[in-house]
């Protein structure tokens, strides 16, 4: 599964006051084992997450939410990303527990991918690899 030809950097955070960290840490370790350079920052709010993503030059931002904060804080994250101009060249994914009706809303807010508890490391890795290469193609030539 690891693909050393593609270097990817990802910032992972648990969103806001979310208490559950098992999922975020598991994904962080799995992706690190796939060769992704992971910056795990624990609990954080949109401003901080975007700031870290910019400082680190992240290709991907992944956030985790299980207890219902996903819509409001998730949308805020995407708004901040948009304001700071990184929405279109960074891949944004969110994982956790969401009512099925909220999945289209998260996509609408701007998330490139949403993952439930059933998503395994390979599914997530394959997704972000493809998403990163697609987003990079969208970047204008300098």
């Amino acid at each position, binding site marked *: 599964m690891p693909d050393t030809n593609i270097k990817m950097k990802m910032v992972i955070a648990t969103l806001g006051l979310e*208490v*559950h960290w*098992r999922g975020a840490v598991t994904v962080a370790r*799995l992706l690190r084992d796939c060769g992704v350079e992971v910056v795990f920052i*624990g609990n954080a709010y949109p401003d901080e997450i975007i700031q870290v993503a910019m400082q680190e030059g992240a290709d991907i931002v992944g956030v985790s939410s299980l207890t219902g904060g996903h819509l409001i804080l998730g949308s805020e994250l995407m708004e901040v990303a948009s304001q700071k101009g990184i929405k279109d060249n960074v891949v944004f994914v969110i994982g956790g*527990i969401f*009512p099925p009706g909220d999945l289209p809303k998260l996509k609408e807010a701007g998330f490139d991918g949403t993952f439930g508890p059933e998503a395994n490391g390979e599914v997530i890795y394959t997704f972000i690899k493809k998403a990163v290469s697609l987003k990079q193609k969208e970047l204008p030539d300098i």
Partner: protein
Amino acid sequence: MDDDKTTKQILDEQATAQRCASLYNPDFLKELHNSFEKWQNTAITEVEKASLKTIPHSLLGTEIPRGLFYSPQDVSKIDYAKDIGFPGGEPYTRGIHPNMYRGREFTMRQLSGFAGPEDTNERINFLLDHGATGVNIIFDLPTIQEYDSDNRMARGQVGKGGVAIDSVEDMELLFKGVPIDKISVSLVTHYPTNTAILFAMYLVMAERRGIAWEKLRGSVQNDMVVEEVVRGAPEYIPPPECFRIQCDNIAFIRTNIPGWNCITFNGYNLREAGTSEVTETAVAMANAIETIKELVARGYSADWIAERITFFWDVANDFFVEIARLRAARRLWYKIMKHRFGAKSSRAMLMRCHTQTSGLCLAREEPLNNIVRAAYHALAAVLGGAQSLHVDSYDEAYSVPTEAASLLSLRTQQIIQEESAVTEVVDPLGGSFYIESLTDEIERKILDAVNEVEEMGGLVTAIEKGWLHRKITDYTLRENELIEKATIKIVGRNCYKASAEDIPEIDIFEYAQDTEEKQRQKLKKLRAERDNNIVVKRLAELREACKQRQNIFPYCLEAARANATEGEIAGIFRESFGLWKPPNFW
């Protein structure tokens, strides 16, 4: 009590000193051994022989090897009186009451908590009207993490996953019309710091309703493992301070509210974060040992404290292991109290417990399957002799349960209680070669794990060093690998996969949209109408108590009486104790 020795050393010495009268005579065992050999050589093939022991893999399990079947050979060392005994008598393996469920049914206590206190109040009354026999309250993220609903950090999360409580006024709305002098109430406060605040608010609420504290029955959690390890948070106080508050709460509650369980050692949430039933039980017991030692050092009697402590266990997939674990935990706790702490009171030796079916074992795919999973978990809890039970709802893999799903969980309990007849006989599986052998093995493993913690210098030290964080992470990663390889099977996910898109046709709970705004308005009014000078004074007194190392609980109580908010009180803790950064563990 001998502090130089570990609990395991003390219990091992006891075991060697005691006689052991096997149920079987040596000649019989010899004959049995011979006929077993003969059976092995004739009845089964070489291939079958090689697989006589297997290792089952299950979610949140321990991988205890299992024989093909069990016989007197596996329990030949068991002394009936010493190891099993009679129900309600030492060593309490069979149960804490002589007549168990014939005398007292298990308490049917379904968790409730969502949106504002007014909304959750309706759910509490709905469940009580439908035969629930206890109340169980879960708080929303900001309340659990101790930020007021109008704090910017709470935005988007108010009323999510639990009920929003900011002040005594909210506590009054939450319990409006609920007969708290007659029914027992479990407040799932999780952390020592929010126990000091939320339970203080509960006591003030009772006062304002004219209900004497002596009449209150119920429990708080108050467990530092949940605060420092199980949860993720933007801010933590250091583990030694958290442990100190845990003990402060116990000392105050035990002294002033005699019918209240002052701590619930919470294995459940640790297990769900990712560990086995052995670690779950061992960490809770290591915490209990350290807590009682600390309170003894503060001058309290171990017996008196232990009479009012309880445990909270997860019941997951490995059916017989879960039953055996409850039996093992009862016997081990009895031994710890009797031999490590020299307890005299029989109540102090009882491992009383609340149990909850495993949420982690629920799957999103084909959610109705979760009804079956939770029913098996619940049955295991009852066969294991639990005092109180919550059954998870099938829709919890998506959101908090709907009213209909909550009712179904309650009905699951009632069907076990009223229809299955499993409660008629005490410890119905006791004496099974398999169950007794598993009970022994699990007890040994738990004690070994307690020993590991004690040899590291105790639980607070183990937490500071990141041992427990790493243990959970390592366990979870390995478990994840086993799920991906389908070694651990999840029906509908990695075997017998659901064919259609896994969008279920079930109703999903929808949150009210206006909870955050309503809470903000209430807070605005509260801050405008209360006497803010008194609030400032009470908070200053609390700050001083934190510094002077006085018991903080009475000061939290005074702050609650003055209508200080949860966030204001918690702010004093953060300011006085400083913040702790958990070790890097991933």
